[in-house]
């Protein structure tokens, strides 16, 4: 599903954010990526959604070589990869439903289709009752679930979550991780970037550990080793 081959990423002038990274992630996997701050986890995700281009190496997503992807193809790639972040990135003046619908509107989907898909994804994240609320009327965990719902509107094969529970307490964290597992069971490949030792240890799934831009450990059913 995802191949990183001999990836180097250098930010000017001289930050080597990723150093010869090789990864293969298979369809349907649930992979945790751990590592201290500044070790290149977010950079890895930016390369995956073509927000940055690798300095060296090759990236293949679903058989598609995106290493030198032209700008006009980037939106197509991004509709196949759902992304959520620590800060949710919701629009405060839009309701939950509008926030989710926005992702479909800007992709040119018809209103009929939007009205069909929005309730579906809100149901998956368990917010079908709160569609008319504004983000500030929701808890952090609920806001993150809206963000996850939005990332699902294009039925992505891959869902990438960059420290999605970074701002959440342990109960909300638990709920978000459960939700990600549920989405994984529905067939979506999950990449979870996290700092959270308990989360990683409880998952008992594949764990990739980064240090100074390099993969120092890659274990099936791994543990948080730092």
């Amino acid at each position, binding site marked *: 599903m995802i191949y990183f081959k001999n990836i180097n990423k250098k930010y000017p002038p001289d930050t080597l954010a990723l150093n010869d990274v090789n990864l293969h992630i298979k369809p349907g996997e649930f992979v945790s990526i751990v590592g201290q701050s500044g070790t290149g986890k977010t950079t890895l995700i930016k390369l995956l959604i073509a927000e940055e281009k690798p300095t060296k190496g090759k990236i293949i997503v679903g058989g598609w070589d995106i290493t030198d992807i032209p700008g006009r193809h980037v*939106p197509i790639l991004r509709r196949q990869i759902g992304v959520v972040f620590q800060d949710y990135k919701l629009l405060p003046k839009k309701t939950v439903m509008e926030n989710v619908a926005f992702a479909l509107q800007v*992709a*040119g989907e018809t209103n009929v289709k939007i009205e069909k898909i929005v309730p579906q994804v809100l149901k998956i994240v368990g917010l079908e009752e709160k569609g008319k609320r504004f983000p500030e009327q929701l808890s952090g965990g609920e806001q993150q679930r809206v963000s996850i719902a939005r990332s699902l509107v294009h039925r992505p094969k891959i869902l990438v979550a960059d420290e999605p529970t970074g701002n959440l307490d342990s109960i909300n964290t638990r709920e978000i991780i459960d939700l990600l597992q549920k989405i994984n069971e529905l067939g979506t490949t999950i990449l979870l970037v996290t700092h959270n030792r308990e989360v990683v240890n409880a998952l008992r799934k594949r764990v990739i550990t980064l240090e100074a831009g390099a993969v120092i450990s890659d274990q099936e059913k791994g543990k948080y080793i730092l």
Partner: protein
Amino acid sequence: MFLLSLARIFRFAFQSFLRNIWLSLVTITIIVMTIFSLTILILVNVVTDQAVSSIKSKVDISLYFEAQTKEEIVIDTKDQISKIDHVKNIEYVSAAVALERFKATHSQDSLIQDAVDEMGENPLGPVLVVKADEMNNYPLILKNIKDFKIDEVVKEIDYDDHQLIIQKIELISDKIKQFGLFLSITFTLISLLVVFNTIRVGIYVHRDEVNIMKLVGASNWFIRGPFLVESILYAIFGCLIFWIIFYIAIGFINPLVSGFFADINFNLISYVLHNFWYIFGFELVAVILLNIVSSAFALGRHLKV
């Protein structure tokens, strides 16, 4: 699908327009001023061209024959002159007609009327009025006519090229045009900057939306479209507002201006109304292009996915 996206782009554009309403108004004001100076430039061009060509049309060479000159001689002279190169037209004004015209031009002056009546017989001779195809050719034609040795029958050859007036008009109009051009260029540059800045502010205000759009896979055109449309809206509103104001103002200007142009028989207002769609269309297209250029610069690399 395409129309749907277009409709959404327009909706986003209007939202952005309204969200920064004061900035939008400032931008439109600058565009109105740009169109104002552009219009002045266009009209000054038109007016001076009209003035000059109207004066040029009055230029001619008149041959005043002695009174009682035989018609054959006049006709003969006319034939000779018609063979000169660049002569476009010769008008034969008989003595009787010349007198009519003289009386008509001095109809207010009873003294002259009386004097003419007293004389009994026509004091005027026939006249030949010669027109050249072009202004520059008059001196040559004049020289040719003088070579005919018709001094005995021709009392006077009158030629006034109005050179002085034309030069004066051209001088003044050049000054006004220069000023108009300066004004137009200045306002064009200012509006380029203002539109650039407004679109930049728009991008800044909408940075969250823009980032989310990129994240969820909106196409480049969907992200840029609203800002481009917004800048086109400024152009359209600017043009409309200017012409509404100008149309109202025309009512007040009309009497002033028509007096000024009485001599050259030119009606500025009817010219403007007659050519409204040309001027309006030209300005609209020009300002839209201008705004697209500056918003394209503003969008620049910033909105690349």
